């Protein structure tokens, strides 16, 4: 996926509730897409590197997500984690005509 550039349309922005995340499975990969209250979109791997918690179910805010299992925190832009050695893969995501576009 890294060597080629691909854009995936994930459908209407309204499928992601304001201030929450949602998990999409693309080619067998779980990707969490977040819609922050201020309108910003983020996309990361869905599984927490700690114990595979579903990050899409986490509480978000100020560009961060908190894993629902053990409250490990991650920066949604850089993927950097609150714990040493934990980092998320992040993806570019944008909105066009009320639709969510994921750039792989």
């Amino acid at each position, binding site marked *: 996926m890294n060597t*080629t*550039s*691909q*854009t*995936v*349309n*994930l*459908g209407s922005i309204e*499928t*992601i*509730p*304001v*201030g*929450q995340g*949602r*998990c*999409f*499975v*693309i080619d067998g990969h*779980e990707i969490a897409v977040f819609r*922050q*209250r*201020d309108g910003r979109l983020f996309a990361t791997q869905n599984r927490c590197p700690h*114990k*595979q*918690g*579903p990050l*899409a*179910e*986490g*509480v*978000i*805010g*100020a560009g*961060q*997500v*908190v894993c*629902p*299992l053990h*409250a490990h*925190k991650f920066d949604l832009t850089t993927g950097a984690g609150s*714990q040493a050695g934990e980092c998320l893969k992040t993806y570019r995501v944008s909105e066009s005509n009320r639709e969510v*576009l*994921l750039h792989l």
Partner: protein
Amino acid sequence: MVIGGALRKDAIAYGADGIASDVPVVEEPYDHVIIATGSRPFVPPMEGFGGPGAFLFRTIDDCDRIAEFAKASKRAAVIGGGLLGLEAARGLMTHDVHVTVLEAAPQLMIAQLDPEAGEMLKKTIEGMGIRVLCNTITAKIVRTNDRITHLEFKDGATIETDMVVVSAGIRPITEIATASGLTVNKAVVCDDQMRTSDRAIFAVGECVEHRGRIYGLVDPIWEQAKVLADVLTVFNPKAEYLGSKLGTKLKVMGVELASMGETKPSLPGDEVVVYREPSRGVYKKLIVRDNVIAGAILLGETDTAGVLMQMFMANAAVSARRADLLFGSSSGAPVLSVFDLPDHAQICNCNGVSKGQIKEAITIGKGHSVSKVGGCMKAGLGCGSCKSLVAQLIEAYAGEVKDDPSEHYYVPGVPLEKSQLVAEIRKRGLKSVSAVFRELAGGKEDPGRKVGLASLLKTLWPGEYDDERDARFINDRVHANIQKDGTFSVVPRIYGGVMSPAELRRIADVAEKFEVPMVKITGGQRLDLLGVKKENLPKIWKELGIPSGHAYTKAFRTCKSCVGTDFCRYGLGDSIKLAQEIERRFQGIESPHKMKLATGGCPRNCSEAYDKDLGAVAIEGGKWEIYVGGAAGGSVRKGDLLCTVETHADVLKYMGRFMQYYREHGKYLERSYGFVERLGIEAIRKVIVDDSESICARLDADIQKAVDAYKDPWKETELPGYPPAVQWCGTGARPCSSRK
């Protein structure tokens, strides 16, 4: 009216003759006067003090001047072999001057050490290249051409030196008190209310003599000031200052030292335990009186100092094996405290953090508050029961636990404690989490605190709260408890642990139909369906037809009970009926942390009511005891008896009051046991039983509002216009375009 106060730079508040001549005399009537004139450094009587090369050691400016002068000096003398004198000597050494410490007493640090420890410290310090002369009184500073050349002692001996630093203690400033006719002994004499010999005049600080003692450290003076404030403001007219226990832990020239209380035995029954190891400069001494520590000295090795200090300050009974107090326990078991554990011992059992890692965070990472250590190591961030151990470690390795004010903020980005935050939220009428962040935190939505704020707002605005689902923890979004594999657990409410065969059958049917991987009886006497897929939740709720058991949220969880009076031959009270009444009334009530309850039909505690957040236990005579603050989780604690009542209605009343008070004053994620320990059961009883603040009627009304606002969350999917409980996310996605 206050006499004294902060000194302006370079200003002398009170000259030797009392009042500076250029200060206009002001007349001012008063009700009370507080004398807080402090102290001035003591210069022992000698000829020739003053002028270049002679210094006091008291202010930062003094230090700067001393350092500057030392640059051009080869030899320095320090008059005073106390704590500060030795610090001055160490400071001078770093400027490459030959230092001599001159002490009038027969030993160093006479306030903190006994003669033997003093001698040992002297040897250690001499080993570092500092000369120490005890029993030495300086008579004269001798100068040639305005430069100090040598000192003459009372016994006629002399030493060569280029500079002199005097650090010989302090003397209280008492001129104003003396001139006013107050009783002055070594300092201004005060009673236990900080009152001088004149009832309208008080004194506080280093100018005070209380019960024959003068204090020069800040802690005792804070204690004095607190009493004075309580007395003067009539907040507590009976407040008393009974003297302070003094203990210090410090490093003198790199030598570890702890000293507390008395340095030598003074009563016939005093027990003295001494260990000495001169080759390593280690000396340990313990004075035990009536099985509590009357004094201790630890020199060269202070591993157990923290716990000794705690025991000393708390007048705690000491262990039978006194050696444990000086060396830690031989078995490695934490009989004493966390200090005695080896570095690899795990302190935070939730996040697997060892003592050594915490030590590193404290010493290298400068984590001097529990929250800072938590921030970098995650220690204490799980169940929180190790927080006191972390605090002990900080005390041991950093000297003191810094009070991080942000620890008390309800939301870190908003510098307000809970009560202040509540006031602000009420004042501005903020009814949603996003509104609070928008108005009070500049729009920065701290994801770690959204959930806590949501809980608070729901408590503050029963029925009016603007429920934004993104501020809910996943459990509260889907009314189920997330499991390690991302599935959920479903716990229907079973009032008092009693159910009908029909309900039991329905639960079994649902479990089979949805292929629930595990059905388990919980600790709270309910049935738990584990491993449920998210998308099956609403269907399961519907088929169960039983309300949510709230086994996933920070709220009233359950009230379990023993068999009670119907069948048990010991039962004194109908614990089942009471448990059902409690559970029907308080189901779903949100609180800072979960509340687990129980009722017991007799004091045999089969339902463990003594160690629940709230428990009611039937006793002989048709009465119920209400316990609060019990715990049998990460911490184990027997609850405190709040009150004893006669009827079920009264149990409900007092339990409801306690819950509302806890909802209003508990910190988010503070269990009732932490809350009760923090406030103290007496204080809580005063408010909610004696009604000392006249808020009981209001508390009763507010908990009633919360009870009235209860809705079964498992029914919310059926309500028109209600946002769907769960965003039923598909997991497919269609690619729309791809480019190379």
